[in-house]
């Protein structure tokens, strides 16, 4: 009996230990030092090797120009970023400068990052002059909480070889959705090649919705996900796959390889057009086919989504003045040019976007229509960056999974999403 009791207790003990893994723990530690007139700022950013190189280079420039500032740069892998930063903040040890994107208002709505309008006016920084309409993107209740750092519109990548072979004119910003579809049809070879990479990602089909004059969340903050404009856009995006067969289905993508989607399929010449962000350029430089980029086509009106990130100052920062000084420098022309020199992303600074360094980047092995980014920035729509951004995305994912995989009725799905969004936004 004794041996058995011990055995049982042993197993039970192991059981409890394994169970404990699911209990939540949060802890953080660290310190800020501010001795000898030099202020050390912690700065958290996400990304991979290119990002590490670019941010470090910019930080080095900053430290040289401002000898009284030292930056402890922490690069966190993208998929862990939110969690890590959240843990730092929960531990009362938030970074002085933190990179933020669509999730910015999780922090701002809970006063975890500082409103920056006063800092900007004190420093004589005119956001709309430096960044154009993007300047106020990271706002919550009329206050700016992050200074744009990287910002590029979604663009159309097209395979010139396939376009030439099919005798189709290259895409332009003047294309309508109908023009785009006509081109996709001509560029499709059933079972072998498709005209377009698909629009299953929010940034893609939301662009169509805004082109139709719709909105996901209206200006008053109420969800309008099942408005006719949005329904039409979603149905069109889905029909391209399941009715017109000019976009690979999820099953066809899965057969091409693991983690296959529009970007790798475009590089593999399986799709003739793909809509995505700046990041695809780097991988295509070595491609052995002719390609270029163009601004997004239009619907009733011109609209396209943009991606990027900004820099914010956390509530925990002991020297927000210095932190803002750093951000001011990092988003100024000199430091911003590093972003394009390293082919990392589109710098948010408009002046840099229009400079030769951007329009004719050194690393470009062929002519690329880099002006497409500046051209697009005139009609970028403002994404509804609500504090419940992640929950909103989950509501879409939860209701559109089968819809994207097997086709379906957009109205039915969006009605369900609308109901969920109303309860999510209502909670706030």
């Amino acid at each position, binding site marked *: 009996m004794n041996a*058995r009791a011990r055995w049982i207790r042993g197993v039970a003990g192991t059981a409890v230990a394994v*169970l404990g*893994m*699911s209990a*939540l723990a949060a802890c953080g530690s660290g310190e800020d030092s501010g001795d000898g007139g030099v202020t050390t700022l912690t700065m958290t950013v996400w990304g991979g090797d290119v990002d590490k190189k670019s941010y470090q280079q910019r930080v080095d420039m900053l430290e040289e120009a401002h000898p009284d500032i030292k930056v402890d740069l922490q690069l966190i892998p993208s998929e862990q970023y939110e969690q890590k930063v959240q843990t730092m903040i929960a531990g009362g040890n938030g970074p002085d400068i933190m990179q933020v994107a669509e999730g910015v208002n999780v922090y701002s709505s809970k006063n975890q990052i500082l409103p920056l309008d006063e800092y900007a006016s004190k420093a004589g920084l005119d956001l709309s002059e430096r960044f154009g309409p993007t300047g106020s993107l990271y706002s919550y209740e009329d206050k700016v909480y992050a200074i744009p750092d990287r910002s590029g519109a979604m663009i159309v990548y097209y395979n010139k070889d396939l376009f030439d072979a099919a005798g189709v004119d290259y895409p332009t910003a003047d294309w309508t959705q109908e023009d785009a579809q006509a081109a996709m049809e001509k560029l499709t070879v059933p079972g072998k090649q498709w005209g377009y990479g698909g629009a299953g990602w929010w940034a893609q089909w939301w662009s169509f919705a805004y082109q139709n004059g719709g909105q996901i969340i209206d200006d008053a903050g109420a969800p309008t996900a099942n408005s006719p404009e949005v329904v039409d856009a979603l149905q069109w995006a889905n029909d391209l796959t399941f009715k017109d067969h000019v976009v690979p289905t999820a099953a066809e993508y899965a057969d091409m390889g693991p983690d296959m989607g529009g970007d790798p399929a475009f590089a593999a010449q399986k799709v003739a057009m793909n809509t995505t962000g700046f990041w695809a350029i780097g991988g295509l430089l070595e491609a052995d086919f002719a390609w270029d980029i163009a601004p997004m086509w239009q619907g009733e009106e011109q609209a396209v989504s943009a991606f990027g990130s900004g820099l914010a100052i956390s509530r925990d920062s002991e020297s927000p003045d210095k932190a803002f000084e750093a951000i001011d420098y990092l988003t100024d022309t000199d430091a911003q040019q590093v972003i394009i020199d390293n082919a990392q992303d589109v710098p948010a600074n408009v002046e840099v976007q229009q400079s030769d360094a951007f329009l004719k980047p050194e690393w470009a092995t062929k002519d690329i229509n880099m002006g497409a980014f500046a051209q697009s920035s005139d009609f970028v729509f403002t994404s509804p960056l609500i504090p419940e951004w992640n929950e909103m995305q989950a509501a879409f994912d939860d209701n559109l*999974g089968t819809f994207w995989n097997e086709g379906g009725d957009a109205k039915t799905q969006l009605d369900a999403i609308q109901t969920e969004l109303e309860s999510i936004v209502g909670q706030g």
Partner: protein
Amino acid sequence: MATDLGAVLGAARAQGPRRARGRRADRLPRPKLSRRGRTEARFFWLFVSPWLVGFLGFLLGPMIASVYISLTEWDSFTPPVFVGLDNYVQALTGDPVFWQALWNTFYYAAISVPLGLAVGLWLANLLNKRVRGRKFFRTMIYLPTLVPLVATAMVFKMVLAPSGPLNDLLGLVGVEGPNWLLDPLWVKPALIVLSAWGAGSATVLLLSAMNGIPREFYEAAEIDGAGPFRQFWSITFPQITPIIFFNLIMGLIGAFQIFSQVYILTQGGPDNASMMVVPLLFDQAFGFYHFGYASAVAWLLFVVIIGFTALAFRTSRRWVFYETEVR
């Protein structure tokens, strides 16, 4: 389930006093420790302290904290707001996704655990035979367990592709394979297929238990005219039931806590068809900043797991055979 849990606790209580009384009798006179005894006691605390600190600081502490957090609404930034049992009520009555995740997890555990045991038992029995290249086969069967889950998941994405190797194989026998990971109906079976991949670790434990069975048993059985099947069911199986039981408990706990496979392969999709409890908890805490709700879900899962573990212990006396325990 609740009655079983109560019964188990009752059984534990029934044993309790006897043990407690015995200990109290030892303690009453409290003999003074000799110097050597004191040194030994000091060393005891010294050597046990790493575990003690780890347990109290990193396990028990956070667990107690999470009980409190589960009674609050907390976004990790602003101070928690006490809401009583609201989170539990919300999970049990107001959140269809919680029930769906729980059902999915049951589905997964109910099939993957017995399947894993059956496959493990079958493989172990095969490897226990004196066949040529036995060591090689043992290595090959354990090898999959050593491959990092991320890599395995990537491979399975290809294996489970609509026109992937698995469906090609099914095609050979005239079965048209489904779109495993893309079809709400087949995504759970797909995860179960992946779980069978890890049967090697159970196999190794079962095999070592089989090796420990005295040859004499089989010799005696043979003389009595028992065939291979009879030998397996009357000797091998009863002898290894403690290990099967161990694998059952660990398998249950592991299956209820399935996370990485879901996170890498499907993210809970399509349409929450593969959403399990732990990924749900993770999303709620780190995606949506609902720490209170996530903690409540964690404790509900804890109750479910404890319930099933208790149930397994309860039934164990009927089928688990301990040699040291003569009945």
